[in-house]
């Protein structure tokens, strides 16, 4: 053998090389440094497997045939694949075991129904395999690269390797006749899978003693033991039994045909309607996510209850989940610490033209990582690449049909199965069906037909955005079509959604108008907005509703304040407001005698004291708040003879005397009462020191008017008014200075 993959690649011209690199992108990425490296990469099993995975059923059939036949010419191939010799052996075609491991997913179809491949199909397939560099043409014969042979397995098309001493056809016929009809069922069982399990396969048998069918087959060398457990049907016997066919069922050179298309106008119209619905559903979802702000699960999903709530106005069932995952995959919503929220992409999306909006949804759909049919609030995907591949596959398959073609899910699955014989298509059938259902929701298919939207690049006639709404006296606003983004946003603020669809019905309510006022709209602005955007006259009921809301709005207002200052004296209040402290404290007049300060009460007190005022603190109930004595540690006994401060330490006797004379001038209550009575009788001014209700000690100069029942009524000097002092509270009495 002179031809190697490396030599073929080295001798390729640019066109062939380009084709190879296009067909096998794994060879181009990462870019190989040399042709040798590329050839090495091309001959690895992984690369060849990828190349084989890309073959359709017919191409795969051809490569299998090449593998089965060994180095053979195209003519030989054609004789096996295009005009298969039929049934030379009587009885061998009667019953065929159903087993065809080489053809996963290919539905057995009778030869009559499918168009059989032509020589042209064969040439095309071979050319493709050569372009792929899986098959190398060599002096009129075709040579399978080694890696491909390995990937395809030891018995391609169920044929055993070429026997060491092959029997001739005549010999086989002779032996079959000699063995009798009982061996035929045994041989037929192995006809499409060369080997089978047989206990004691290496048993001693002879033509004379053999009685059982297996013994007979072994004795006539129609079966050969491979080891003690396995027998194999020799290649030439198998081929003869098959009537020379390589494969049990024929494979068409083209996928099952699409049915004739119906007039596309109806399908396209319905698809466009569906697309508009998808856009409006997505808008509704974004609005709902914005208001509900769904919680984010620790796994990254969306809290189910919130999601269900958000979806109530969007869509029911699976369609709802599709919109949700679509919103996430298109980047329209995203989660952060605050939960799920619309993204800035969503803001841009809202501003887009309807057609661009839909294109974004189509692109987002292809990127959804979740498996079709298994969508839920858990926004994670077990196998993102697979899900995307299936969606992409369905979309490209739909693109092969004419617009208006009826789409039968089973046909789509059969077509995909033909296109990818090595993919697990039958297992994925439920996924593909679910994918097609998703297509219906987006408008890729409509009325079970393929629509223009599958591959449309130009706007197929989405309605223009409306600039105006219709206001009605039942307090609703009807948007007779999609609205311009600004108008839609304003309307969403002013009114609550009542009906979803291309158009929108929204209702003005107390709360919706209040919401607008809350974010800073004024009644006049709302009125003007109605006036500017209404196609009809603004209904009187609506204006009255607005007046009601405006009148109520702000009737009670709430503001934050650190402290409240009650100032009885209006002039003092004005002074305070104009003082430098006003700014520092954040003073604001809230009523004729009340100021609100942003500063905390202690700061306010300190500031006011600095201003020379003597404020009192009140607690939250309005009572005067007494600052407790600042915390102090308990004093311990002092060392040495230094007297404690506060004890009398007068060294001067005179001082001492004076100090002593200033001490209470009585020592029992009788003495005190006597003094008070005397003062009352003399009508003289005396100075009493007494403890008030709040515990503070004060000294007052008074004249006693009456003493009775443990209390005395006195008059304060200097017009201080009458005061009643409980006698037990009096701690000192002395004559007042004149």
């Amino acid at each position, binding site marked *: 053998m002179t031809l190697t993959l490396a030599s073929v690649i080295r001798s390729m011209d640019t066109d062939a090389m380009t084709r190879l690199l296009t067909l096998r992108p794994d060879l181009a990425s990462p870019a190989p440094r040399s042709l040798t490296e590329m050839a090495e990469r091309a001959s690895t099993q992984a690369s060849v497997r990828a190349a084989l995975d890309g073959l359709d059923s017919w191409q795969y059939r051809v490569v299998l045939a090449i593998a089965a036949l060994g180095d053979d010419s195209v003519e030989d191939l054609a004789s096996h694949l295009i005009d298969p010799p039929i049934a030379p052996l009587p009885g061998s075609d009667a019953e065929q075991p159903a087993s065809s491991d080489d053809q996963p997913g290919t539905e057995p179809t009778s030869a009559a129904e499918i168009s059989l491949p032509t020589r042209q199909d064969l040439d095309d397939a071979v050319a493709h395999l050569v372009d792929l560099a899986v098959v190398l043409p060599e002096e009129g014969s075709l040579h399978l690269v080694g890696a491909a042979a390995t990937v395809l397995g030891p018995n391609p098309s169920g044929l055993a390797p070429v026997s060491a001493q092959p029997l001739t056809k005549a010999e086989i016929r002779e032996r079959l006749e000699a063995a009798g009809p009982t061996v035929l069922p045994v041989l037929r069982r192995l006809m499409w899978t060369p080997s089978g399990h047989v206990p004691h396969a290496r048993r001693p048998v002879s033509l004379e003693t053999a009685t059982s069918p297996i013994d007979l087959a072994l004795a006539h060398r129609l079966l050969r033991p491979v080891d003690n457990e396995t027998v194999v049907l020799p290649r030439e016997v198998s081929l003869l039994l098959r009537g020379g066919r390589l494969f049990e069922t024929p494979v068409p050179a083209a996928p099952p045909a699409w049915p004739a298309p119906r007039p596309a106008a109806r399908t396209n119209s319905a698809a*466009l309607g569906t697309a*508009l619905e998808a856009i409006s*559903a997505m808008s509704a979802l974004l609005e709902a996510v914005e208001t509900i702000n769904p919680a984010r699960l620790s796994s990254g999903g969306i809290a189910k209850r919130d999601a269900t709530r958000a979806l109530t106005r969007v869509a029911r069932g699976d369609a709802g989940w599709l919109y949700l995952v679509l919103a996430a995959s298109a980047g329209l919503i995203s989660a952060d610490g605050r939960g799920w929220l619309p993204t800035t992409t969503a803001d841009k999306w809202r501003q887009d033209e309807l057609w661009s909006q839909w294109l974004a949804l189509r692109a987002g759909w292809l990127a959804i990582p979740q498996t079709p049919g298994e969508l839920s609030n858990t926004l994670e995907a077990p196998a993102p690449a697979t899900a995307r591949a299936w969606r992409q596959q369905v979309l490209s398959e739909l693109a092969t049909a004419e617009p208006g073609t009826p789409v039968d899910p089973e046909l789509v699955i059969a077509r995909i199965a033909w296109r990818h014989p090595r993919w697990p298509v039958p297992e994925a059938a439920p996924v593909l069906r679910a994918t097609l259902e998703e297509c219906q929701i987006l*408008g890729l298919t409509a009325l079970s037909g393929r629509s223009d939207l599958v591959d449309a690049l130009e706007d197929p*006639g989405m309605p223009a955005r409306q600039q105006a709404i219709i206001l009605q006296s039942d307090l*609703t606003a009807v948007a*007779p079509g999609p609205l311009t983004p600004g108008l839609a946003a304003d309307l969403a603020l002013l009114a609550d959604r009542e009906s979803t669809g291309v158009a929108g019905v929204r209702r003005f309510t107390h709360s919706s108008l209040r919401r607008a006022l809350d974010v800073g709209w004024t009644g006049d602005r709302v009125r003007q907005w109605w006036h500017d955007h209404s196609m009809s006259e603004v209904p009187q009921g609506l204006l009255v509703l607005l007046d*009601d809301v405006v009148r109520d709005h702000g009737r009670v207002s709430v503001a934050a304040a650190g402290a409240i200052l009650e100032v009885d004296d209006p002039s003092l209040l004005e002074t305070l407001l104009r003082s430098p402290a006003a700014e520092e404290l954040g003073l604001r007049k809230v009523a004729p005698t009340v100021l609100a300060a942003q500063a905390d009460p202690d700061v306010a007190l300190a500031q006011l004291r600095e201003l020379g005022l003597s404020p009192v603190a009140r607690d939250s109930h309005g009572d005067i708040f007494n600052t407790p004595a600042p915390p102090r540690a308990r004093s311990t006994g002092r060392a040495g003879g230094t007297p404690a401060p506060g004890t009398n330490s007068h060294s001067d006797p005179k001082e001492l005397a004076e100090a002593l004379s200033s001490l209470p001038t009585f020592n029992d209550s009788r003495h005190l009462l006597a003094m008070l009575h005397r003062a009352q009788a003399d009508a003289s001014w005396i100075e009493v020191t007494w403890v008030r209700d709040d515990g503070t000690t004060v000294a007052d100069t008074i004249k006693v008017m009456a003493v009775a029942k443990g209390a005395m009524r006195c008059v304060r000097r200097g017009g201080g008014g009458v005061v009643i002092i409980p006698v037990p509270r009096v701690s000192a009495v002395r004559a007042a200075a004149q």
Partner: protein
Amino acid sequence: MSQTPGPLIVQSDRTLLLEVDHPLADECRHAIAPFAELERAPEHIHTYRLTPLGLWNAMAAGHDAEQVVDVLMRYSRFPVASSLLVDVTETMSRYGRLRIEKHPTQGLVLVSTDKAVLTEVLRAKSVRGLVGDQIDAETAIVHPSQRGTLKQALLKLGWPAEDLAGYVDGEQHDIDLVEDGWQLRPYQKMAAESFWAGGSGVVVLPCGAGKTVVGATAMSLAKCTTLILVTNTVSARQWKDELIKRTSLTADEIGEYSGSRKEVRPVTIATYQVITTKRHGVHPHLELFEARDWGLVIYDEVHLLPAPVFRMTADLQARRRLGLTATLVREDGHEEDVFSLIGPKRYDAPWREIEAQGWIAPADCVEVRVNPTEDERMACALAEPDVRYRMASTLASKNAVVRDLVERHRGQPTLVIGQYVDQLEELATELDCEIITGATTPLRRQAIYQEFRDGTINLLVVSKVANFSIDLPSAEVAIQVSGAFGSRQEEAQRLGRLLRPKHGLTARFYAVVSRDTVDADFAAHRQRFLAEQGYSYRIVDGGELDRINEG
């Protein structure tokens, strides 16, 4: 794809928005009326809804899904979503897959051309007890007594059965229309004939459109003994009067079966109340249904039909049934039972259309907002929640406004309606007029009504409690001072019935409401509903009554 934009917007939530001012609006309205229910009819955009029942009604009337889809696509301004069209087709295809038919030997049978559907419903728990043995893969025996219940159960399962088993003829009785000094209106004739052709079903006509006459016409077509079920005694007497006036029936042939009288005659008029009376756990008056071999049963005001009557109707499936109503919408949501037990809609005349023909008059609604005094406001604010509404709606400030309104309409037949007797008595004294409350005897009541009708008096105060269910005489002006006038639905309808002025005049309905109180909240609901029903609705301040006639 782009053509002249149609008048209809098909929403994904199954509502249809019809632009009234569009040149194709009328054409479109006619096209969608058979399958969509009108929900709201304010001035610019009418809202219709697609419901399974509506679609099945259309099927029963001989329309098919292709037609419905075609209408939607033809009139829709924007392309209609595929899912909705598929859903319509799928829903409509469910009707008629099951049929109840007569079998030559087995009596009644449930027949289906779709074996899978038959198997599905026969396996359902709700159906199992109602159906006998299966004769073959497509037929199962139905006991005649279960005919109605089975239809109910099948509808609940989403497979409404078409009842083709026919009817018993009933006892023959000659009834003819006597068009003496009056003429059957074209739509009344059409309604009766549609019913007769369909066998059983409901005729939807607005209040004041002459449903009694439709009933009489149906009787003249059936010519058999007839049981008429009505809401109350007064209504029963009206039916009797009408029948004597419009048909060849004499007073002797018409019996009244009510609380006071128990006559069974060839034509018997019974009230719902007497039929649903229960004594010792049984309905003693059920025998009425068996008393004669009725050929026709007429249900007046089907939307008010009480549940027990439904149960009894389930047993009457072999007799022809005619339902008369102004609306198929039931506040209790029993629309399905009407469909399966009485029958699909056989005729529906849009209210506004009959109004446009001049048979009933539009009303002009004005809400007058009274500003309560400071004291009244404080009193309302401090009132306990359970008396707050009463307090708010009976404020003395209202009386002056009511007096003013009455004065402005002096000479026109005027009714003052309210819920609270104290307030009404006060008003009656102030206005110096007659008052009817629950305490007024029927005799006195009839006399006052008669005087009002004759024009001897043209101002009357009536309490809602006394007159809730009784046909008020027609008036040109109604002033409601307190209370809601029945449910919202009824309020709008009764308004139509109450205000039936002579041709060319517009009736006036005033609702006097205390501003900024719970009373005003109730008024907001009323405003919405009346506006939805297409009434013009204005709000006027109590202090600016001079502006009352500014449109």
